[in-house]
């Protein structure tokens, strides 16, 4: 069957405003979700789960959050790692200090704390714009790094400053095998992705984009920059915080602030750049790309070397990784500044017309 929308008439605005107006898309996405929930756990082995799928999901969630701030509201942030850290440590403290704190609640509370901190560091955005703001957000990054290293209370007085959690469970479902973890993350991510999508397509979403595209005009039609920017910071940091909590609880199990260093912030930024600013879908593309690439290179380069009969050391591989990474980022910015998501939609446009382009 061709990829077509003709013959699909919208008889109500509801129908016209759904996330995927085209039937084929709806089918495709449902199929995808089904695969993610059923097929992947059946097929993927433990390594794939732990090293690729789980990190991918969690980082995709973080990227999603960041994308709301940067992609939709146009406020550059280099402090994402910090907000993840806040989420993680807050959730940790709730779990160790309150007995029988349910995991989900802990995660959400972590997100809330992150949101508060996010708003706090978002306040400058009301006066500071663009690059200046970008650098200002680094303050959040370094301050939080320091706070979690120094202030013993956050780490429950662990001598080394490293904290750990275990025996996770939700409603009696103990999450310990990678498969449980995967499904749990997948569930969380799916829900958040849906909620986020709803937000960006309702009026608050339009306010964010209005501020991003032309803040003066936005003000003139009655949008309050304060409200728009701070909600963006809050929502973004909330999601990022939850992602951070997942990263610590589900993926690492034990972590120190270095797990949420500035490199993480950049990594997330790259995800949304490569994936596509202002696109929910893009966050996932970007995350997939950046999670898989280094692992792939790690495996492929030595193999490639051995094919041509020279032995490539791990040092060279990771240097090469740096280079390829940098090169790819530049490449994307030059070829498609709107990222994979745009390529995707262009592809769809083409497909829609295929095989008769005129």
């Amino acid at each position, binding site marked *: 069957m061709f990829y077509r929308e003709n013959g699909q008439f919208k008889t109500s605005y509801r129908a016209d405003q759904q996330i995927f107006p085209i039937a084929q898309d709806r089918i495709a996405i449902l199929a995808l979700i089904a695969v993610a929930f059923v097929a992947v756990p059946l097929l993927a082995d433990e390594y794939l789960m732990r090293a690729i799928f789980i990190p991918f999901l969690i980082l995709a969630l973080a990227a999603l959050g960041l994308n709301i701030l940067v992609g939709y509201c146009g406020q*550059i942030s280099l402090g994402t790692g910090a907000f993840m850290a806040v989420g993680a440590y807050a959730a940790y403290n709730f779990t160790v200090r309150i007995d029988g704190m349910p995991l989900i609640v802990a995660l959400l509370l972590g997100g809330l704390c992150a949101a508060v901190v996010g708003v706090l560091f978002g306040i*400058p955005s009301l*006066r*500071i*714009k*663009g*690059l*200046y703001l*970008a*650098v*200002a957000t*680094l*303050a959040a990054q*370094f*301050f939080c*790094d*320091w706070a979690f*290293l*120094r*202030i013993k209370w956050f780490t429950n007085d662990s001598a080394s400053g490293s904290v750990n959690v275990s025996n996770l469970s939700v409603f009696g479902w103990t999450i310990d095998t990678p498969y449980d973890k995967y499904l749990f993350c997948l569930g969380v991510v799916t829900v958040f992705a849906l909620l986020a999508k709803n937000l960006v397509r309702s009026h608050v979403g339009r306010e964010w984009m209005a501020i991003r595209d032309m*803040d*003066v*005009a936005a003000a*003139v039609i009655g949008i309050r920059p304060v409200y728009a920017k701070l909600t963006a910071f809050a929502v973004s940091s909330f999601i990022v915080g939850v992602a951070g909590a997942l990263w610590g609880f589900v993926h690492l199990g034990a972590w120190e602030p270095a797990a949420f260093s*500035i490199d993480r912030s*950049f990594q997330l*930024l*790259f995800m949304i*750049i490569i994936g596509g600013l202002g696109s929910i879908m893009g966050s996932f593309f970007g995350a997939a790309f950046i999670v898989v690439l280094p692992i792939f290179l790690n495996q492929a380069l030595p193999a490639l070397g051995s094919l041509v009969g020279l032995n490539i050391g791990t*040092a*060279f591989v*990771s*240097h*090469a*990784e*740096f*280079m*390829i*990474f*940098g*090169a*790819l*980022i*530049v490449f994307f*910015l*030059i070829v498609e*500044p709107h990222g994979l998501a745009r390529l995707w939609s262009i592809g769809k446009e083409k497909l829609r017309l295929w095989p008769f382009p005129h």
Partner: protein
Amino acid sequence: MGFFIETTIGGLMSGMLYSLVALGFVLIFKASGVFNFAQGAMVLFAALAMARFAEWFPALLGFDSKLLANLLAFAAALAVMVAVAWLIERLVLGKLVNQEGITLLMATLGITYFLDGFGQTLFGSDIYKIDIGLPKDPLFLLESVFQGGVLVNKEDLFAAAIAAALVIALSIFFQFTGTGRALRAVADDHQAAQSIGIPLSRVWVIVWSVAGFTALVAGIIWGSKLGVQFSLSLLALKALPVVILGGLTSVPGAIIGGLILGVGEKLSEVFLGPHIGGGIEIWFGYVLVLFVLLVRPQGLFGEKIIDRV
């Protein structure tokens, strides 16, 4: 009291070094509107080149005059940096004309990664030595006045002197040479500059080369202080608040911003740090900048931004 002075001097010294890196940022931002995150990576790259050439040349050409080795290495490293500048213009910026600032910032982040990887592939990731004969031993002043005297690090003293010289040289270059004028013209208005026949791409190559030069100098000084090693590229993070504090477009801003931050950091770390746990200088600079920006969103010396409709 003596100790306070000592700390302040120490702060000024390291401040001078920050501004050296910050200078690179400002030059490039002025002339091409690019916020060059790669400055740190360029410092590392330049330093690596310098260090390794200084090792290789004597070995290759079979002489052992350290001076000669350093001079040759310096020349070679400079050539490398110019080549890098040229490539960046050709392969990256030339293709990103008229993109928004954020896109360009991203591009330079990409360049950062590339240079980090490339530099270490070419020159190795061990820790290397740059020895341009800066004295390492401390210097004690006013010992009569304060018990223990005021310690000044000779090496820093030289470094600061070099940095100052560089700044002066650059300002002369900008004020009095034809190229300098062209650069300023471009800085003021790209289109206008183009319309009177100043070739943008050439100007950019020049600016990036100059930035490469400052990177090299910074690299040599830091390198001889700390040894040439991957961590040098993290200097960018030290210079960022300096640039922003000074205002992206102002050379004096970079210098004064550097000094302010240098002093602020050291004083806070030494006098405030012990009470709240130490290790605060890393964020102190940024938080300081944050508050300055709240009062002056364009930094201390930046041009004021007015929204027009």
